[in-house]
């Protein structure tokens, strides 16, 4: 059963819709990410859950109670900000104790809870310091501790790692996941970083222009995107808009400008009507024209248009009769620009999207 639900939510700002008939259900104990480019409405959704923002239409249900009009300070949701938002005039101890004091906890209780949460975020011994004496990573730990200590019903993260450097980001996201799982706390996590979201989430909602394009576990999204936007966002660089799709029992036949392709019919690939083929640059195969051998299926003849060096592999832009393709290939020696090659789309590597 869902812990909380956003029901037909619409948010408009300056007569522009940010969210339109938006629906989302989140189960207790899960970490759900909202992922999307800037302006997709993910932060709006988060601020709506927190109560910083009121929807023009729709309902917010928490434990099946109508929470739509409940003010922020009565919600008991923890919020972790992108810029940490620590209180600069208070010590780390007092920063964390802030919420407890408002809840009229006794002095000894506060002391115990603050020390306990400092241990959870690995900041024991920092309680007497002030925010400006801490590094970015430490500040964010304090911010997490401050949100955790009030034992919130939901924990909300607004791009919490985007101000940290790359190494720290990886460490911190592991920390966040560890704490979230240890405490079993329902969490909504907003980010524009795909890797970050995929690595820590139970479910990822990919958002675009105020709607959720796909909500699923990370592995499913990674392998079976449903829409062209999702596919593009997670790295399917090549798209073929087929003219015709014919479903057979164990395969799908596709046609584009007289060229025909065959796909394995995969039970998990749920899109029953999509006619756009999507394929990652890593999954395309290139062959030399000479050793083409017997395999002609799913192949196109093409010409290398651009060749760039990526470090571990080369990236080519290949010109074919049905459009340009981006292909990554690991090898020591590159194909020459202008070289005629054969491009093959493996039977099981293309997905069909809307």
């Amino acid at each position, binding site marked *: 059963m869902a812990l909380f639900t956003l029901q037909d939510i619409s948010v408009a700002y300056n007569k522009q819709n940010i969210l339109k008939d938006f629906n989302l259900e989140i189960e207790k104990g899960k970490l759900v990410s909202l992922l999307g480019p800037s302006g997709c409405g993910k932060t709006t959704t988060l601020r709506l859950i*927190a*109560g*910083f923002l009121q929807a023009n239409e729709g309902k917010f249900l928490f434990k099946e109670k109508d929470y739509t009009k409940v*003010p*922020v*300070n*009565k*919600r*008991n*949701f*923890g*919020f972790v*900000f992108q*810029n940490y*938002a*620590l*209180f*600069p*005039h208070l010590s780390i101890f007092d920063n964390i104790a*802030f*919420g407890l004091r*408002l*809840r009229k906890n006794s002095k000894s209780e506060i002391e115990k809870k603050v020390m306990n949460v400092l241990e959870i975020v690995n900041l024991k011994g920092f309680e007497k310091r002030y925010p*400006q004496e801490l590094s970015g990573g430490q500040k964010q730990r304090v*911010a997490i501790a*401050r*949100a955790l200590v*009030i034992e919130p019903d939901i924990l909300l993260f607004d791009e919490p790692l985007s101000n940290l450097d790359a190494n720290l980001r990886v460490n911190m996201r592991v920390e966040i996941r560890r704490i979230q799982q240890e405490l079993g706390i329902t969490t909504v996590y907003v980010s524009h970083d795909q890797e970050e979201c995929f690595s820590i989430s139970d479910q990822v909602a990919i958002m675009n222009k105020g709607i959720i394009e796909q909500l699923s576990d990370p592995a499913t999204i990674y392998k079976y995107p449903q829409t062209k936007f999702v596919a593009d966002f997670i790295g399917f660089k090549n798209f073929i808009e087929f003219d015709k799709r014919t479903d057979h029992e164990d395969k799908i036949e596709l046609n584009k400008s007289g060229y025909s392709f065959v796909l394995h019919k995969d039970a998990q690939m749920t899109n029953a009507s999509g006619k756009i083929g999507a394929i990652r640059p890593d999954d395309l195969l290139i062959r030399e024209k000479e050793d083409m051998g017997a395999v002609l299926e799913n192949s196109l003849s093409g010409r290398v248009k651009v060749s760039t060096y990526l470090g571990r592999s080369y990236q080519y832009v290949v010109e074919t009769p049905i459009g340009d393709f981006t292909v990554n290939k690991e090898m020591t020696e590159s194909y020459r620009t202008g070289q005629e090659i054969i491009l093959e789309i493996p039977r099981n590597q293309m997905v069909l999207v809307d």
Partner: protein
Amino acid sequence: MQEKNRGLALFTLLVFLFLLGPLLIISVTSFEGGNILKFPPEELSLRWYENIFNVEMFLVAFKTSILVSLGGNLLALLLGVPAAYALSRFDFKGKSVINAFFVSPILIPGIVLGFAFLRYIVGTYQLPIYAALFVGHTVIMLPFIIRVISSSLTNFDFSIEEAAESLGASKLGTFFTVVLPNIKSGILAAVMIAFLESFNNVDISVYMTGPGVSTFPIQMLTYVENYFDPTISAISVLLMFITAFFMFIVERLMGLTYFTKR
């Protein structure tokens, strides 16, 4: 290069002399032992400093000035803090107009403003002298309060307000527990600058003061019209010290805010 620097140094020195010279001369004359203000003094004495405290009208005017400046300051704070907060925190239509409106008392010549007050506060509304002084001084302090507090709010990270709210604080509680403590030094600096502005004010006060009620600077003017002894120099020296002391504190305060903000 060296030559140029020496020329610049000389020029700077001259400017300093020009600016500080009169103050220096006044300071020296305040130690005159004789009955007439002159430079250089013939004999040295502190008797004119003593005299300040013997002239009753100075003591009364000093009390009036302190009362008006402090009271007006409190009033200006009550109006200015919320105004500065709203102007920094929110975006709304006509914000720049309101901003300009609040600063306008600085832009309008004091002598004109004073006349307007005379015409309306004293004339039309017939306010008693004390009340008129309070209102007038509140108005001249308000722009300083708003400007200084606004500037300490420009670096203010308003997301800590949201943080406080998400932890359970009400809007009003957030203002007192999170906003105020972080602009404390800005408020103190604003109070001091406004106090000096009000305490040293002549052009507005001169219209508002009446029989029996006078502010300190006005009393000084009156005194100079009648007497020409070095008391006035002694008072000037005291005022300079008070002002310098306040400005020193303001300097330290605003310096501290920069230090803690980062």
